[in-house]
């Protein structure tokens, strides 16, 4: 085979994959639109998410520099302050995997596989010329650049300390933040002033205010989990002001409480649009996710960045703590408090059941599920671990478990 034919085949594969991705997305959107709780205020978020599957078009659509970032530890505020748009490298498309099977091992984390596939399916998209930021979280993320053979020069690693509660790691992470700031300044070729950072923090603070109202609605089981996932997923692709406005409009809708559904807590691996299979199944088994601990959903905002004063150092420090100490990533070694946060939500929201979602191949969450299961069970909560990936074939199996889980929760409810 000549390189030419290989290239041709690759192009064909690219086209096919891209087409499949589009179809998958459209199917999912159509499914949402057909739901009885569909409201039109969700449309802007779906529009934003459409671009999340096509970085190439995303780049053309925005009129500023695009920086791709994995994971949630790189502060969004800093990107906003530098006036670059962030493109979060997390893909939930099943179809996108087709491209990636060439370069990744079989038992790869589905999200990594899908993201790789999504990037490779773009034509006229030179990966080596994209700016990327990697916080070094799990092994997949750390090795990702090498796996995809990207150019080193355009990427920036943020060496995430795997401890949070000691001082050295805090200081280390602050230094990482300053180096990210420097890197961003080099990209946009102008300095980021403290006013820029302050404005960005303010903007995200506004967003958090709306977001906390959204969470309130969610605790009352008024909004659909799928909608919530769509809104939170859109955050990392949208302009924050726009997102705030759209969310502000969304929460104005008079939602009704869904009385018969049982509230549950969802934890575990990220759920990324269009792969909202688990959420759909949970809703189908008349349960509702009233709270979650997932980095692509409720925990994209662990809380507002509280700063002591408006000096650059204080703002940076606030950001660094907010993205380091409050982070729920299972790759941290001292993660006991993550459970605390969960338990508090469970207690306040009177939620009795926890569903732990593990993507097959996502080892940190798999490990954490064991720790969490033991702790939660001793505290008297029901725990259901569901290990799955982007495929749809195990839906029946999952539904059986979800329904039985619902039965057990119902029994608790009856007893109390």
């Amino acid at each position, binding site marked *: 085979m000549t390189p030419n034919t290989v290239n041709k085949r690759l192009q064909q594969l690219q086209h096919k994959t891209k087409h499949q991705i589009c179809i998958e997305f459209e199917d999912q959107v159509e499914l949402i639109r057909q739901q009885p709780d569909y409201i039109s205020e969700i449309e802007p978020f779906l529009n934003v998410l459409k671009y999340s599957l096509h970085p190439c078009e995303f780049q053309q659509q925005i009129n500023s520099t695009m920086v791709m970032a994995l994971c949630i530890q790189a502060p969004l505020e800093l990107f906003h302050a530098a006036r670059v748009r962030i493109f979060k490298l997390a893909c939930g498309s099943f179809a996108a995997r087709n491209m990636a099977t060439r370069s990744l091992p079989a038992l790869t984390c589905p999200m990594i596989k899908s993201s790789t596939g999504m990037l490779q399916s773009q034509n006229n998209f030179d990966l080596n010329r994209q700016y990327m930021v990697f916080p070094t979280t799990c092994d997949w993320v750390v090795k990702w650049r090498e796996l995809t053979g990207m150019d080193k020069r355009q990427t920036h690693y943020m060496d995430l300390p795997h401890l949070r509660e000691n001082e050295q790691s805090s200081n280390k992470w602050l230094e990482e933040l300053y180096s990210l700031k420097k890197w961003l300044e080099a990209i946009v070729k102008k300095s980021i002033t403290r006013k820029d950072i302050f404005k960005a923090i303010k903007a995200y603070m506004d967003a958090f205010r709306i977001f906390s109202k959204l969470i309130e609605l969610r605790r009352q089981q008024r909004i659909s989990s799928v909608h919530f996932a769509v809104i939170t997923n859109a955050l990392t692709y949208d302009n924050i002001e726009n997102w705030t406005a759209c969310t502000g409009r969304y929460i104005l809708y008079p939602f009704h409480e869904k009385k018969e559904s049982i509230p549950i807590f969802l934890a575990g691996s990220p759920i990324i649009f269009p792969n909202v299979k688990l959420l759909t199944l949970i809703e189908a088994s008349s349960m509702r996710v009233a709270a979650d601990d997932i980095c692509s959903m409720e925990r994209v905002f662990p809380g507002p960045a*509280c700063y002591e004063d408006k000096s650059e150092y204080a703002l940076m420090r606030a950001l660094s703590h907010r993205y380091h100490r409050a982070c729920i990533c299972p790759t941290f070694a001292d993660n006991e*408090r993550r459970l605390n946060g969960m338990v508090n939500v469970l207690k306040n929201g009177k939620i009795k059941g926890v569903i732990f979602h593990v993507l097959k191949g996502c080892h940190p969450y798999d490990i954490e599920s064991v720790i969490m299961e033991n702790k939660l069970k001793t505290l008297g909560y029901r725990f259901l671990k569901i290990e799955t990936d982007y495929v749809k074939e195990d839906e029946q199996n999952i539904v059986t478990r979800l329904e039985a889980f619902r039965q057990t929760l119902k029994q608790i409810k009856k007893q109390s």
Partner: protein
Amino acid sequence: MVNRVRMICQHISFVLLIYGGRLGIHLGSSLPCFACPFVNGCGGHCYLMILQRSRVGFQVTFDYLFSRAGLEVLWPFVVFLLFFVPLSKLWCGWLCPFCLFQDWITMIRKKLGIREMIFSRKTHIRLRPIKYILLVLLILIPLCIANFNLHSDWALPFCRICPAKPILPMFAGNFTHFHLDFTNTVTLCFTALSMVITGGLLVGIFFKERFFCLFCPMLGLMHIFRRLSPVRFEKDISGCTGCGNCERICPVDIHEVHLENEKKDVFMQNCMGCMHCVESCPGDNVLSFKWFGFTLFSSSRNYLSLKRKQ
């Protein structure tokens, strides 16, 4: 909101304690805050001065101290406790005039956008015994004067080096405490030390919020008796997500509240009840100030998100 109320309280208290005498108000000589007696026409006196004085304080001979008359030493202390018990260390954060002075300086720094000095946790732990050393010295030195022929110019040892002594009288138009007293070597040393300390602490206060509180023997004294008071600062450790807001926001950088993993009680030594941490805690009811079990103020995510609207 709470911070605003606190500021109002502090200002009222400041006017009352600095100018109260001129309005005919005097709250006695055993106040658990830095209401400096050197301020002309002040509305109350700091208990630390009484503690060092003769007769009512510890500048007495041992046989006097252990006789029935020794009860006189106890009496101001009882009054002190009467003031202290209902409010506990909230006196510091909410009523102390020197604390307000520090807050003003901090406000200026914040306006100028100069960043705060951050001490490492180790430094904080190292600084901690100082206030107790001072407390012990301010009792021991008067005792030595009365019993072991220590030069009587050592009287009121703490007042002589206290930064409130030169600073607070300025608000009553008295700038005379900035001096060196050449009467003899003891007074010269004390006044020189006082000037150096005042200068150093003033700079410290500028660069570090409530810097003086790290050394304040009054805070140490109140911490010893905190159990007598119904004021409790509690943490629901099961709800703490470890976001670290409390540590960062804390004016005196108390890290124990953030790190505490076992106990409920987090009324730490340096804590003065300013409630900044409660305001900035995103966990619902995780941090709370209680008074006889009644919650004065507790944290919530909603409060935090609304607070930032201002």
